[in-house]
């Protein structure tokens, strides 16, 4: 399938170069029409088949019928301080990966990792989370605001940005969180969480 998607893009480049090379106005005009038809057709096909061949893309988002009564399960990450207290972390802590993308990676990959690989991954993420916490605690920006300040472009999914934990992070916990949207809508605490993995810096767990 990747070959097909690559071919769609290469064909676009080829048609564009054909336009570029045409010096006779009538030929050029005809080739422009071919390019327009191709770009329109490729996008239409991506939209109709819902096969994303970026940059010819299907723009698939919130397209099904939402079911507020059906359980939803997602991966969640929590930071832990030395006393074992859990903290919700800034979703830009892991940049260049945004939190929702990292959740998706964990969902797809965590179960296939060996214990050693899991330790490596979580230790690295803990380091990143602590570096982001430290930066935020010092009043310095992370993520899109790092260079552009308030003008930085946020990631498309606007997740809440909690204040940084006051204490150094010494652990990271990965949960699978499940809830029924209609129930959680009226009671935010109606979530079932199951620990998928956890990691503590240094020798052991919390004090």
């Amino acid at each position, binding site marked *: 399938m*990747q*070959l097909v*998607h690559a071919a769609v*893009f290469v064909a*676009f480049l080829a048609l*564009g170069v054909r*336009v*570029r090379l045409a010096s006779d106005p009538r030929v050029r*005009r005809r080739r*422009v*029409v071919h390019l*327009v038809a191709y*770009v329109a057709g490729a*996008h239409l096909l*991506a*939209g109709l088949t*819902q096969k*994303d061949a*970026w*940059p010819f*893309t*299907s*723009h698939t*988002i*919130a*397209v*099904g*019928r*939402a*079911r*507020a009564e059906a359980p939803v399960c*997602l991966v969640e990450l929590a930071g832990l301080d030395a006393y074992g207290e859990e903290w919700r972390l800034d979703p830009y802590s892991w*940049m*260049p*990966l945004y939190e929702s*993308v*990292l959740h*998706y*990676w964990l969902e*797809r*990959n965590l179960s*296939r990792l060996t214990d050693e*690989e899991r330790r*490596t*991954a979580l230790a*690295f993420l803990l380091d990143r989370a602590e570096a982001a916490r430290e930066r935020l605690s010092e009043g310095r920006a992370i993520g*899109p605001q790092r*260079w*552009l300040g308030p*003008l930085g*472009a946020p*990631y*498309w*999914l*606007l*997740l*809440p940005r909690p204040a940084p934990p006051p204490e150094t992070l010494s652990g990271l916990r990965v949960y699978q969180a499940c809830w029924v*949207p209609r129930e959680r*809508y009226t009671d*935010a605490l109606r979530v079932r969480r199951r620990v998928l993995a956890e990691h503590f810096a240094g020798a052991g767990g919390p004090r």
Partner: protein
Amino acid sequence: MEAAFLAPAGPRLLSATRVILAAQALWIVLSRPALPLLERWPDVFWSGVEPGLAARFLYAPLGPVLMWIRYGALVAVLLAALIGLWPRISSAIAAVLLYQLAPLEEILAGMPHTSFGGLTTPTIGLFLVAFAEAPAPDATPSPEWRWPVALTRLVFAFSYLSPLLAKLRFAGPAWFTADNVRAWIMVNEPLTRAPLGSAVAGSDALCWAVALGTLALEASFPLAVFSPRAARILVPLAAVFHIGTALVLGYFFPSLPLLLLFVEWDVIRAARPAARAAA
């Protein structure tokens, strides 16, 4: 079709389009300053990458130094395209680099959401700018200054039409009902805590307005490509729609500034001296 894509336009229309595309891409790229650091993530994160996907985007690990050079080169060529320095060459190089770097998250995580990142239209649009002639400031009106602009607008218009097609395919006309909009708000609310989600979910009238407004906008936006009069109505409506989506669902539309592509810049710039002379 003929009027939208091949009618003569002033050279400023194409120049303005290049500036908007480069500025948009620069905004997104500079908002992701840590992008080259992805290269330094431990191998375990890259171990699940589908080789075909990385090859398709010509992505090869370069090492941290070359990755920063590639990122710096992208910023430099986008700036060059923005100010009109070797506009065709800088646009072409920028488009190639965007094609490689925009899907990095998709390559690593396998999450097909590159199109939400705000770089899709700039990537295709900058290629189109490179395929076209570069206009001199005093060039006479020509179809050459029109077709890349109109085609870029069409690409952008698909960010409305394609979601409509997907909704009709996966949910049918029932997507456009108050109940479905309310359910989507409930599904998103625990994640995004969007400020107006609860207020809209609590009102049948507002849920219906969102449902029918979405249908009307997504179905009609392609008209903006073919009719400046339609664009004058649909572009402001689209801006309101995206601000509303951020407030109700917590979905930000990073391509929002690209609505400026629908302004007839050559007409505006040409009209100013005439207005002054008349005064």
